[in-house]
């Protein structure tokens, strides 16, 4: 894995990223304003079908997290790794990979910032993302 920007790689899933702006891409309902990640063709609040793509905040705070000690079925990265929910200013929590120099020191409330993550190597390499811990909270 590498955190270097390799945005030319095929993305891990479709419609997940604003590659140019370097952020996740959510979907905001044109009718009721509800925001979700990832972007889907339907609004889960009003069942509208007009959903605009909306880049999500590049910074947030850890709401909760865990460190997965063993690789689960289908996982293309290495264990241990951290995943959790990050709270974003626009009122959304998203499930995300979380990286830090020392995973063991992660805490609820830590400030994190969007970063690219590459999973797999060679032809199998895919562009994914994480939120990287910036500093430990108080």
């Amino acid at each position: 894995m590498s955190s270097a920007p390799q945005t030319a790689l095929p993305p891990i899933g479709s419609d997940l990223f604003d590659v140019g702006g370097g952020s996740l891409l959510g979907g905001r309902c044109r009718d009721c304003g509800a925001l979700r990640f990832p972007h889907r063709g339907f609004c889960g609040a009003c069942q509208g079908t007009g959903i605009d793509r909306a880049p999500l905040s590049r910074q947030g705070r850890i709401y909760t997290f865990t460190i997965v000690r063993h690789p689960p079925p289908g996982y293309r990265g290495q264990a241990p790794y951290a995943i959790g929910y990050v709270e974003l200013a626009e009122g959304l929590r998203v499930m995300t990979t979380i990286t830090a120099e020392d995973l063991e020191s992660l805490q609820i409330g830590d400030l994190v910032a969007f970063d690219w993550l590459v999973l797999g190597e060679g032809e199998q390499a895919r562009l994914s993302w994480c939120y990287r811990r910036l500093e430990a909270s108080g």
Partner: protein
Amino acid sequence: MSDIVVEGVGMHPFGRFGAKPAIEMACEAILEALHDACIEWREIEAIYCAHMYAGTGAGQRICAILGQTGIPVINVENACSSGGAAAILARQALASGEHATVLAVGLEKMPRGFMDMDYFEPWRQHIGHAVNPAQFAFASRRLMHEQGITERHLALVAEKNHAHSVHNDKAMYRKRFTVDEILASPMIVDPLRLLMLCAPNEGAAAAVLRRRAARPGDVRLIGHGLKTATRDQPLGEHMPTDSPLRSDQPSVTRRAADQAFARAAIGPQDLDVVEMQDTDSGTELINMTELGLCERGAAATMLESGATRLGGRLPVNPSGGLLSKGEPVGASGLGQIYEVVNQLRDRCGQRQVPGARLGLTQALGAGGNCSVLVFERC
């Protein structure tokens, strides 16, 4: 007035059974339930068959072995809550007048290790997000953050349920572990360690339900609730990949329990015994609150008081729970019913809750689907 009477229950042990097919385990559980109910296979008018992994037409394959009587067979998949959902469908068939005697059966044979969670999109698996115990860990960490729950409390739940299991010959693990042994077991998904998590495994359980007037000593199903999570409830087993910051609406367990209690015309304070979804230690503590067994913030105190232990005021998971039995997901909900019905019939030997008259089961699965059932001995 007619009642929904649990006429008989059966259970194939939960564990690992080599090459034995799940269908065969289901047949054994069914025969035990029929024997218990003193009825014949041909008297069953409809079958509700719960499973996740058994493939096409599991219920029909059971009939191909036990006898093709031509009755309606419906297969039910509701993740870890499949068994509860099958029992509720069986109940509806009786209550509607469509049938008088029906069977709910659950069966499963699962691979070892982390479940292959196809609930999530494939790319979530590729990036390592499709890990169901991670969801339990998320909720446990919030519990520790908000309510002062410690690792020791998480270990104490596992210690209690494993202590109960030594009296249950149908549990996968029948061994006591000390709190220190549990705290020394390998970390799997922080803060949850190996002995704080249930194992996916194999097994089957069945119940025969009948519509008739209950007689003294009969066990009746008096309340049921089945709900699905809403987007604005707290994080939990519904496994959202995103959620709003404002997530303070009642949980799916709270809503299903409220419905079941209202229908049963009792409250949580009236219960004598509970079998609940202890997928992991943290989930048992959360469920204690969400089922109304204690006030918010009081789960640790209730646990420490010994109230939920055999011999306490309200034993929780006297069977050893999923932590000891393992969780064959299609069968686990009916395994809970097997335990509670036997508790109410005073047939549980050394793990018997003396004089138990009112019991509750709760199963909770992916997608946030929860089934709660309340049983009463007449």
